[in-house]
Structure formats: C-alpha cells, structure tokens
C-alpha cells in the first residue's frame, strides 16, 4: 500500500463523503469551536451529557477529508462513552497519529485505526486531531451553550 492510499483509506474517504452525526444540536449541554489557523479548518462539536456519559455528539464545519472523517469517526467512537473513556481514547488516537501504528491499535482503537497513515504526514496530524481537541474543550468547558475553543 502506498503512503497515499494508506493515508486516504476507504473508510476515511467514505466518512468524508457521508459524515455521521453531521448536524447542529440545538439542545446540547456543551459546545466548542475548533479552528486551525494554519489551514482554515473550522468545526463545532456539540455534546449531550447524561451524568458522566456522552449520550449524544454532533459536529459541523469546514475541513479537509482527514479532519472531516476524523470528526465523523470520533462522534461514532465516543457516543455512549464516559468522559474518562473518551479522554483515554483521545490519548491513544494521538499516539497513533503522531507516533504511528502499534500492534494493539485494532483492538483498542477499533475503526479509528484507519488513521494510521497520518503519522507519515506531519502537516496533517493537526487535521486529524482538531476534532478531538475540540471535543475535549467541550467536555472541559462550563455547562453552558458556549463551551470553549480549541486551537491547534
């Protein structure tokens, strides 16, 4: 597999074409805006919390295929997870896109393992991680409509 086809795996291309949970969430508990001034990527992440559990999550924004697919797959991955589980997943995801794949990825990261190719493209790491930083900013934000902002 060439590095380009490893970067743009079919799952990524498919999520870029039809992103999941791509909508405005009017009744969100938390919200954060993320933007990458380097490339102009912008997105908003909305969260609904039930106690400590992310019961619903949505996003909207402008970005490249990597950031759009990453946001889409992230929403699918964190829905139903506790705050701590979501943060641990972010840590493992960060390890994948910065350091490259490790043997345990498919077990611990599931579908998110498709981002293994990103580590070969240092300029694209921020594209993949922006949705996660934004989700984290929303989790950490105060319980009001505007949670916080993430800039990476």
């Amino acid at each position, binding site marked *: 597999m060439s*590095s*380009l086809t490893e970067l743009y795996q079919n799952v990524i291309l498919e999520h870029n074409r039809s992103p999941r949970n791509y909508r405005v969430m009017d009744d969100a508990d938390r919200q954060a805006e993320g933007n990458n001034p380097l*490339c*102009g990527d912008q997105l908003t992440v909305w969260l609904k919390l039930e106690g400590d559990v992310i019961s619903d999550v949505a996003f909207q924004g402008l970005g*490249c*295929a990597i950031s*759009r697919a990453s946001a889409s797959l992230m929403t699918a991955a964190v829905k139903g997870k506790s705050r701590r589980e979501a943060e641990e997943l972010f840590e493992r995801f960060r390890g994948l896109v910065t350091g490259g794949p490790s043997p345990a990825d498919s077990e611990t990261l599931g579908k998110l393992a498709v981002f293994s190719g990103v580590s070969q*493209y240092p300029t694209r790491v921020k*594209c993949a991680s922006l949705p996660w930083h934004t989700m984290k900013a929303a989790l950490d934000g105060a319980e009001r409509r505007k949670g916080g902002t993430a800039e990476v």
Partner: protein
Amino acid sequence: MVVSGVAATAPPIPPPFTSLDVERIRADFPILSETVRGGRRLVYLDNAATSQKPRQVIEAISRFYSGENANIHRGLHYLSERATAAYDAAREKVARFLGAGAPSEIVFTRGTTEAINLVAQSWGRSSLRPGDEVLATGMEHHANLVPWQVVCEQTGATFRAVPITDRGELDLEAFDRLLSDRTRLFAVGHVSNALGTVNPVRDLAARARARGALVLVDGAQSAPHMAVDVSELGCDFFACSGHKLFGPTGIGVLYGRQSILDAMPPWQTGGDMIERVTLERSTWAAPPARFEAGTPPIAEVMGLGAAIDYVESVGLDAIGQWESDLLSRATELVGALPGVRLVGTARAKAAMLSFVLDGVHPHDVGTVLDDEGIAVRAGHHCAQPVMQRFGLPATVRASFAFYNTPDEIEALVRGVERARKVFG
C-alpha cells in the same frame, strides 16, 4: 541515444515556448534534479512561497564563507575591507536593478516583511496622527496589512482597504472614493500572492501622490518576474525579498525615496547605525546605515547580488515571455478540468493559478499532488481577507518560475485529475 557526439536532448517543447533555453537553465538549479516521495521527479510549483536557487547563488555564499568572511564597516584588515567593498557593490547592484536614484536609497532588511514593518514603525509611528488614514487593499499579503493595522492602532490613525472585484482586481471606483486628503500612505501589492493579479501600480501611485499620500509597493511577487523601475512606478517605497528572487532567505530590500528616508527616525538601534554615541545621547548615521543596526546578513547580500546577476543574464524580458506562455498553457489546461474553478481571473496576471476543485478540500488536492512529486501551496496564502472575499477557506496555488516547463503543467493536470478520482 547519442548521434554524432551530440547528447540526445529532451523532446522538443511545442511552441510558443521559445524565449529561453529551459533545459540549460534547469541544469543551473541542482534541486530540480532531485527526486521526492520515493523516487518521483520534483515538480516545483511553489515559487510564490520561495524560489529555488541556481548554483551561482549557492557558490557565491559558499565562496564568501570559504575565503572572504569578515565583518563589514569595522575592521581595517584585508578581509574586512574586501567584504565591505563587496557589500557596498551589492547595494549598488540592487539600486540599478530596481531603478533607484542612488545606492543610499537601498536599505537591506531581513525580507519584505521587515522592510514594511520598518516603514510602518519608523515613518508611520512618527508621522501618523489621529484623523490620518492609511489605505491598503483587500488583496494584500498579511505582511502589507497587519503592520498598518498595528501602527494605526498605535497612533490613532484609521486603516482602510480598497475592496476587490469578483475577478480579483482592485475596485478602482472604490479606490477613488477611499482616497482623500486624509490619506497619508497607500500600501499596495504589485502582484497579489494569492490571486496573481498585477495591479496598475503606476496609475494608482500617481493618483495617490496627487492627493499628497506616500505610496509603498510590496514587490515580493513582482521583482522576481518583471522588470521593476521604482522611478517609473512613481512609488516612495518598494519592498522585496531575496529568497523569492532566486537568492537566499534572510535578505530583503527596502527602496525608499532619499528625502523621505533622510527624515525618518531609526527603528532598530545599536551598532553600525550611529554617528556618535555618548552616555548622555546618540546621533544617527545617514540612511541607509541608519536603518541597518547590527551586523547585517553579509553572506546573504552576496547571494542576492549573485541572484540578480543570474536573473539579468537570463533577461527579464525572456523570463516574462516564458512565464506568460506558462500561464496561458496552465490556465487553458487546468481551467478546462471538470470541477476546477479558477480563483482570480484578472486581465493582467502573473504566472500563478489559484484554484479550487469542487467537493475536494485544497489540502487534500495538495497531498495528492505531493504524492506525485508536485509541490504546490494549499492554504490561505497569508491573505485571509482574500479567502473571506471569495468565501473560501483555502485554495490550491500553483506558482511558476522561468525554470518550469510545459511538461510540468501536464503533470499538474494529471495530478488534479487523480485528486478528483480519489475523492470523487
């Protein structure tokens, strides 16, 4: 194949590409024979970001450090005298190259950005008052925009910008409306780095100066591609960068009209810019030394001199013709691709194409092109107001130099088609 002692050459390039011998020129640029991304031939179309360097420039820098290195304007020893003479000779060369009246109108800076900041902080900070206006345009690079916003904030002056049309040209009616007796300085790019638009600087400068405004031209994108004559342009300041002119990074030029430079206070202070220093007070050297505090980038000045020699040996007329042929071919072929929309279709354009591919983010196009060994810029080009004007987060920009070939345009076309297939 070798026929009667003559090495086989590349297949002939179809007309009109006749103004220069591109294969001979390419042989002067070592990096153009490099391969990238696992063996792909480098197709370098990011010249508006920085240009590549001919061996003549690389050798000039190497020669300086190998056999000539010394500080200037200080030592009495042999090497220092020689370095000083070479540094001053390079200043004369730049003055001639830009059509300045005298070498003392040429200030060496770190680049275009520093040159503009120098004018903003020296002239602007000491001259602007509340009620004054600085007029820029909506197509400026951040380097010709942010320094003016900052100095306006510092002095209470007002910052205004001439809007741009759908084609990416300046709205000249709006320019006339915005220009007033309050306008103290008009700052304009000669060539837009995001759109390629060549602005009618001579005409604009005449109109601005008629209202009593000074005129600063950002020539970062024009000096490498067209003959510049500051007296003919009628500007008071002209700024450009060595590294876009096939020279080294870290060196730039500010041309300033002598009478204006003479009246400007120093910006940075220290060694080499003083007349006399006591513990009570200091007085300043005359320009250009007044604006060159500290040890300048001497080797880079040598490299810039060699770059100007190189460009003049090829000839700016031949360069202009070749690049115009490249632009026509690229506009025709890339513009005809399904899903491609050109951004910036001014009637007068330099050799660059800014474009978007329907449904595909410019960064993804850039990554696919990169995989083919094609270097382009994908992003906002440090001109975010231009992107906002066209409602885009970013564009793909292919920018050409005289060492680019029609073959490379065809590689670009194949790359864009591949991007469309990958994301289609």
